[in-house]
């Protein structure tokens, strides 16, 4: 196999890698700014300088020429080269900052240049703490500066678009943002204007950067030049917990990170998954985060005297539910599942009904034709339509659902997490005279109608799986605590820098903002207990998915471990499912 020598060590390679990517793939390091693996390579930041040489071959024999010590004779390139756009070839010899003083010096020199016109306002900059410029300056930059003249001044607080704000003085002109708009989102809304050290990115006059993917440029920007209009000045990175998850705003299931502080989600950023969303996500997927914080249903509610919904204790709510169930025949109960809820939740919902003799749940997909863009925004407004299909739920359109709900056979309706009135599938009248039991996360017009309302955990509070439009099953992790969970005890939960390095008595640790809700698996155990059913899962959703994979052929072999290792699993969506 061909080999390349980096700082005196030999590495084998396949194909035609670029040197910088190869170095990173080998776990080595080079400072860089402009390179991004999913975009074109402009080699403009000039940070990734290395020294490279080719072994000299004898013209006639094709053999490597050797010096008096038997070492290969190397012809060094006369200039240092940027590694990002340099092709790795057989026998190439590379010296990085680790083994060559000139390279180390060149990288330092380059950082000195970048910093002279940079405002160095890290203490008030959102990027601080996750800033490639800050990090690489600490590692490879000069100590102090020889710059004693005036910095260039450029526009600040420029509203490039509704969601993105530019501070042109912080910009290091890497063109990642403009390349994103040209090559990835293809909105062509950004360009660099002016020349030389007056350069900065902007839109055409009168245009606004309203690209539906605009916030990706904030992630891409290696400095704090582009910030999110919503998130800026809200939190320091090190104050937040970062938890992997799945975007539930549509059917694509973009892989994301959820950033929380004090049990509030403060921002959502994309997480790399080459099979789904690469490095990107649509802005709408980020904008839904208030759903996880606000307007949450906390504690169960019951309707008294057919009028007012009032909060109730869990015991009372479960007892009420038990009494109602005992008074009714299973045939008189209609169960409605939800593409907005996870596989585990829907499965348990169906299993519970099945044990009581209630027929298989119906569900109505939440699809808005024409709203997708063929990229990461789908017509499907729900994250788990395929999951519910594969569980064998009976798929109905709005009309069929309406008929079923209004049928005189249906006296009680069990509704899982689908705001059917809000999305216009049902009207409030359709439900009159029915006893509505709803399991939901957020208040809505629909939940107002519930005779009995159980608050359940939302995607950021539990581990659960969702099957996206392409049939890929992926899962979330609990990112924020509920009243009944504790970050330090729950091994599924991540720890932020403060959890790890702070103490319990530091004043940033708070018990606020914990919602009084239960995951469906815990709730079902309680309700089941009241009705004499044994539906307990000691291992929580992890155990539920194990059971799903054993009982449902479409999910065979699915485990959390595999989803984590393989960044989700492609399911055989064609597979005929067995009705549970």
């Amino acid at each position: 196999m061909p080999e390349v020598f980096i700082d005196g060590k030999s590495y084998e390679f396949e194909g035609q890698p670029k040197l910088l990517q190869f170095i990173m793939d080998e776990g080595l390091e080079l400072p860089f700014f402009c390179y991004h693996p999913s975009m074109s390579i402009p080699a403009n930041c000039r940070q990734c300088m290395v020294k490279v040489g080719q072994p000299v071959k004898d013209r006639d024999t094709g053999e490597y020429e050797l010096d008096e010590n038997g070492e290969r004779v190397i012809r060094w390139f006369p200039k240092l080269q940027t590694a990002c756009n340099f092709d790795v070839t057989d026998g190439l010899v590379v010296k990085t900052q680790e083994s060559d003083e000139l390279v180390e010096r060149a990288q330092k020199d380059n950082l000195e240049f970048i910093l002279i016109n940079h405002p160095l306002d890290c203490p008030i900059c959102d990027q601080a703490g996750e800033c490639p410029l800050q990090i690489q300056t600490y590692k490879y930059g000069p100590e102090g500066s020889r710059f004693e003249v005036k910095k260039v001044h450029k526009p600040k607080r420029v509203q490039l678009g509704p969601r993105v704000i530019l501070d042109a003085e912080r910009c290091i002109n890497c063109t990642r943002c403009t390349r994103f708009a040209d090559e990835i989102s293809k909105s062509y809304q950004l360009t660099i204007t002016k020349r030389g050290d007056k350069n900065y990115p902007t839109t055409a006059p009168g245009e606004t950067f309203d690209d539906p993917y605009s916030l990706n440029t904030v992630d891409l920007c290696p400095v704090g030049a582009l910030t999110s209009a919503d998130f800026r000045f809200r939190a320091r990175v090190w104050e937040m917990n970062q938890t992997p998850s799945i975007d539930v705003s549509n059917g694509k299931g973009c892989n994301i990170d959820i950033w929380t502080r004090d049990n509030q989600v403060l921002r959502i950023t994309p997480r790399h998954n080459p099979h789904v969303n690469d490095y990107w996500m649509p802005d709408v997927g980020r904008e839904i985060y208030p759903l996880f914080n606000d307007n949450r249903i906390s504690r169960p509610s019951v309707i008294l005297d057919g009028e007012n919904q009032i909060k109730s204790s869990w015991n009372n709510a479960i007892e009420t539910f038990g009494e109602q169930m005992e008074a009714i025949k299973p045939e008189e109960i209609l169960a409605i599942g939800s593409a907005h809820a996870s596989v585990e939740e829907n499965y348990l919902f169906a299993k519970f009904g099945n044990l009581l003799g209630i027929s298989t749940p119906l569900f109505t997909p939440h699809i808005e034709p024409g709203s997708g863009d063929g990229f990461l925004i789908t017509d499907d407004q729900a994250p788990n339509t395929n999951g519910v299909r594969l569980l064998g739920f009976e798929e109905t359109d709005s009309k069929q659902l309406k008929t079923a709900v209004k049928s005189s056979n249906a006296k009680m309706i069990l509704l899982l997490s689908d705001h059917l009135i809000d999305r216009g599938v049902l009207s409030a009248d359709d439900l009159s005279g029915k006893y509505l039991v709803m399991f939901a996360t957020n208040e809505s017009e629909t939940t107002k109608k519930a005779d009995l309302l159980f608050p359940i955990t939302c995607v950021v509070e539990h581990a659960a799986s969702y099957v996206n439009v392409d049939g890929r099953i992926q899962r979330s992790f609990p990112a924020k605590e509920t009243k009944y969970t504790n970050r330090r005890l729950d091994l599924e939960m991540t720890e932020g820098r403060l959890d790890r390095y702070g103490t319990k008595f530091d004043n940033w640790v708070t018990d606020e903002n914990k919602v009084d809700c239960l995951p469906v698996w815990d709730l079902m155990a309680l309700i089941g207990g009241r009705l004499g059913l044994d539906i307990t899962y000691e291992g929580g959703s992890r155990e539920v998915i194990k059971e799903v994979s054993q009982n449902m052929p479409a999910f065979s072999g699915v485990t959390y471990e595999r989803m984590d290792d393989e960044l989700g699993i492609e399911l055989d969506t064609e597979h005929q499912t067995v009705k549970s």
Partner: protein
Amino acid sequence: MAADWRSFKPVLIPDIPNLDDIDVYIKNGGYEALKKVLSDDWTTKSVIEEVKAANIRGRGGAGFNAGLKWSFMPEPDGGPRYLACNGDESEPGTFKDRMLFEYNPHLFIEGSLIAAYAMQCSTIYVYIRGEYIDWIKMMDSALNQAYEKGFIGENILGSGFSVNFYTHPGAGAYICGEETSMLESLEGKRGYPRVKPPFPAQKGLWGRPTTINNIETLANVPLVINNGADWFKNIGAENHPGPILYGISGHVNQPGVYELPSGVPVLDLIDEVAGGVKNGKKLKAVIPGGSSTPVLRADQLDGVSMDSNSLREAGSMLGTAGLVVIDEDTDMIDLLWRIAHFYHHESCGQCTPCRDGTGWLEKILLKIKNGEGEVKDLDLLLDLTTQMEGRTICALADAAAWPVRHTINRFRDEFEARCKKSVHAIA
């Protein structure tokens, strides 16, 4: 050794009135070279070989053998191929190509057509700096004439070879003279030089094989075809043969463009050709080939002639053969600051060392110019030139660094005299 330069008769811009009129041009043997190469006696390969043998070294500044450059074009594959003619001419001290546009446009057009034929290009663009509004018009009317006579267009002179030829105005950016930046500009994009490889011969305009040549380079081509490579090689200096349009500016009595063989002694150009230093002043220095080439002190000029070897030995470069003559009253700090200002203003801003380095150089020089500099600033300047040189995408950073380094090194006393006494001088 070639004949004395004094007996040379101009061939690029011969002394013939109204040569820009195509009929006059034809009457004086114009377009014969084109007819020749399109005849059965010549092949595309033999044209390239002849031009290569003549060793026409690029007149755009880098001095690359034109025929050799043409030979880098890949075999035709049926798709479009381009010749892009570089008439951006924006380096301070350089103003020769516009003489061709004005006085002998057809020589350049004919040379371009021969080049396009040799490389089997389907389209020729001539990129002309935007400020040359009148010269763009001149070129347009010359092209129209050539179209009318059937020298450009479909099936030229019944040979089966077809090519189109367009002018394209620049928009005031020096960087668009850098060849790959020019390609971006031609494509309607921002003038950012491209990273190489791939080279234009592989991936040029719209990703297709493209060759870029300077206007004067191409104007030499018909001369080579008509008179042969040997004739051309015998003009002027052996290492850089042929006629040269010397642009002489600065403190001389008769500034202008003069056509002479390469290799004319620098002092002869100043004293005999350009009528000597103005107002009887003494010569202080010369920038021999456009503002990016290192300045030479008057005492470095003995025996130095305008060819690449001689100038390299003297510590400079031929560049575009645009000489800037500097008299004894000139403030070198002022001059250098002005040059640094130019490169700062013209850096495209893509690469870090150039974008931020050019500005830093200018600002320090301004400080020194205003009497606020210190000696350590001179060393900082020298350091910065090393930090910039050879570390960027195009050669503009080098072009900005060289004058600073060499002017300081060659006039160090003058710079130091302007500096404040360092407060840290003696502990």
